[in-house]
């Protein structure tokens, strides 16, 4: 008896839900279109090795301000933004907050009247289980007036990104939406995460890999973190956040120049730690280091980039020996350099020569 009631009420529900589910199906298409019209493709620096020269952005003002991810792509004077309708517009970086991985671009065309996100009205928040859509220019699949890619997924967690040097290396360390879809692909950074109703949740972050487990995390920075900086950058009254002074000091105990090592200019997110020059008569010169040597290990730790090398070097113990392994041509060459004695609390560095 119960079973029959169950069945019949289920059938009743089926018929009742039929028409409204059609309405839902229609609205998802218009939702997607609406978001796609507010998403742009960003083309800039890169294109060598595995560094992509493209990323994504979203329009945050009708006059043509675009929020995007802060990355090597923006490191050029030839920044181009392709609007959803296929128009190509030159852009320049108006301001950035590297700690949030955020940059705001200003499009160099004053006549634009673009469909834009309203960061007050179009925004929402979400917890675990919320079904979401991710929009981005991943893999540069879309060109010209082709619409950016859409992925579907579920928010798995809203939690702080547990970044760690050598493991999850990310400049953003705040709360993030963790998503079960592969949203963070090459070029996807700066795209948007929305609810299925098209409310803005966050900005898709960079590709983030745990080097130890070779696993990838797909995350987005909540719009609540970005809203104020975006608005302040547009208004021209934004001041970048200060890094923790202790960390700055710790990093600066030893610098490459003190050993006579001149590194390649650190212009990319992950510039390989190539030696650009060796100062004559320096410890580096005595140890036999040469220009074009690629530093691979420092005291047995892997060096992924100029930045990592500088950070590791900054933390080595006073006195003792600095062990480096460099790649020269096809060979691995180990070298040892004496480390000069230094007090535990060093003075604040006077030069900005190692600025990131």
């Amino acid at each position, binding site marked *: 008896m119960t079973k029959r*009631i169950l069945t019949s009420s289920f059938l009743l529900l089926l018929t009742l839900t039929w028409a409204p*589910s059609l309405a839902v199906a229609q609205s998802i298409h218009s939702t997607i279109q609406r978001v796609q019209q507010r998403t742009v493709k960003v083309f800039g620096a890169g294109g060598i090795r595995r560094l992509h020269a493209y990323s994504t952005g979203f329009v945050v003002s009708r006059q043509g301000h675009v929020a995007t991810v802060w990355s090597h792509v923006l490191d050029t004077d030839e920044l181009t933004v392709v609007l959803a309708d296929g128009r190509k517009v030159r852009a320049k970086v108006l301001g950035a907050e590297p700690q949030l991985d955020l940059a705001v671009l200003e499009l160099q065309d004053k006549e634009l009247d673009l469909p834009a996100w309203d960061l007050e009205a179009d925004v929402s928040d979400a917890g675990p289980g919320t079904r979401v859509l991710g929009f981005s220019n991943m893999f540069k699949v879309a060109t010209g007036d082709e619409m950016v890619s859409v992925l579907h997924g579920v928010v798995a967690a809203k939690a702080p990104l547990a970044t760690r040097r050598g493991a999850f290396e990310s400049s953003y360390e705040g709360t993030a939406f963790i998503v079960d879809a*592969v949203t963070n692909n090459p070029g996807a950074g700066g795209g948007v995460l929305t609810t299925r109703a098209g409310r803005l949740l966050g900005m898709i972050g960079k590709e983030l890999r745990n080097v130890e487990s070779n696993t990838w995390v797909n995350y987005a920075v909540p719009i609540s973190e970005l809203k104020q900086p975006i608005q302040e950058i547009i208004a021209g009254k934004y001041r970048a956040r200060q890094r923790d002074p202790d960390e700055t000091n710790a990093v600066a105990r030893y610098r490459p120049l003190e050993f006579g090592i001149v590194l390649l200019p650190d212009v990319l997110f992950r510039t390989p730690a190539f030696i650009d020059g060796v100062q004559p008569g320096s410890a580096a010169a005595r140890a036999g280091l040469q220009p074009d040597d690629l530093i691979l290990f420092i005291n047995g730790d892997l060096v992924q980039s100029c930045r990592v090398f500088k950070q590791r070097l900054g933390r080595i113990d006073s006195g003792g020996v600095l062990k480096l392994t460099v790649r020269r041509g096809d060979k691995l060459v180990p070298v040892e350099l004496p480390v000069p004695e230094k007090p535990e609390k060093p003075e604040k560095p006077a030069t900005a020569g190692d600025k990131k």
Partner: protein
Amino acid sequence: MRLFERDWLFRSRAWLVVVVVLAVLPPASFAVDPAVLAAEAKRVEVASRLATSVVAIFSRGGRGGGSGVLISSDGYALTNFHVTRGAGTFMKCGLSDGKLYDAVIVGIDPTGDVALIKLLGRDDFPHATLGDSDTLKVGDWTFAMGNPFLLATDFQPTVTYGIVSGLHRYQYPAGTILEYTDCIQIDTSINPGNSGGPLFSANGQLMGINGRGSFEKRGRVNSGAGYAISINQIKLFMDHLRSGRVVDHATLGATVTTREDGAVVVDGILDESEAYRRGLREGDEIISFGGRSVRSVNQFKNILGIYPKGWKLPLVFRRGQVRTETLLRLRALHRASELTGSPRPGRRPRPGGKPMPPARKRPPVAKPPEKYKHLYVKKQGFANYYFNQQEQKRVLSGMSRLGDFTGAKGAWVLVGKTAAGDAYQLTVADVGVGLSWKQKVYFQELKNAAEPLDEPKGSGGLLYAMHMWRSFLAKRKKGFGEFFYLGSEPLDGAGVRVDVLITELGNVRCRWYFDCKQGRLLGFDSQREEETDECEVRFSGDIDSGGRHWPKTIRVSSGGGLVASFEVETVTLKVGAAQ
């Protein structure tokens, strides 16, 4: 748990019912949103219905495998070319009934990465229904089915579910001649072994063949961007594939680029191409192609990429204020050797999608089955010539109703007037073809290895074409060096779908057009040599003369213009006299 966003109307109605039901039943029974249950029930139903059409393909040598999908009850199934490439001519295929079937290769499209195979041993195979992939929208739900990682030992397909992420995507060739044009981008999970498997719409219509994904740093597993070849593209190639041939894609003979203002313009053109002969030049702006407007280079490539070589497509271009509309036959994209050989060496892979590699795992080992050996015939340029022989028989079966022309070896004399009112007499004999028309006499010699001439001038070689016609009717296959079934295409670019037979004699290549349903010969195009305008001959009407059926009107055009429309009044056969 919030699983659906609904409009208030739906919510209020559904809640009303839930409240009513809750009054009678324990609340735990309706903890799940009924819309979710309904959607789930539908997914389960569609997935289990579709699973029977999904094929797990194993190579004969047992080195790998992929997936496929049955599309007809007599066993035709679609898969990726890159799945069959290493699989040999005979394969073993598993279906969800747990049984292993023999299958044979039918036709391949190495550029489009499609292969047609035929499963053997039944005439009641469960099969999928072809959908219309142009109806897909971004955000639509899709099912992908297949055998990723060769997981299923009982051949029950793995089902993944996701959305359409993008449409009309163009994916560059990836180190080989494989090129995905106008394809469907999905976030539905596609992994090694899924290659060649079906992409279904939420309603269970076959929308595409999965075969490729974008991978970069994360290894060759799903990275959120998979690509399926659209079923609408495959439909254009279907009869070509059934012909047992190695089919080719097309090029216009011109390349395009995007101008600063966004217009798509010609930046290179082959002097010998038909496009050039119809007036297309460097710098001309492409307005539309194949009936679709062109706004980007990718769009142009997308349009071009879905058609087999030899199709006629309308092209609209603009130079200054002058707009030109023309109909062009597409050229072959590759040389024959490029299609049958290994992947082109020295071509750098472009970024973007790459074909899913076939999964490597130990499958059942099979020998070429003795009882099906006759279903494979080897021939250069064909994947399996056996199927071409079958299609030739089918297409030519309608010819018998024209009457017996095998005895019509004497000279043919056709007399009448053109539509313009000029009297003509056409004589077609073994030694030559003669036409007297508008106070002039034209002659094409056929003896002494005479060259085919463009007589009358600008007709594309009407006289030689008439010789081809007589040979075709009187001698069929014996009159030509090459004789094969090509596939089907729309007559003159936009007309009815017609079956096409190809004949070659020396340098002269003819395309013979047959009504797909009744097998009537509708006409033919004769080309004296490559890169020249064809003589296009179209037949209509019917004259019964001595038990043989002749066309009442022979309309001849060439180079985009009408030559003449010859009305036939009398036909005389000079039996026995070769003069």
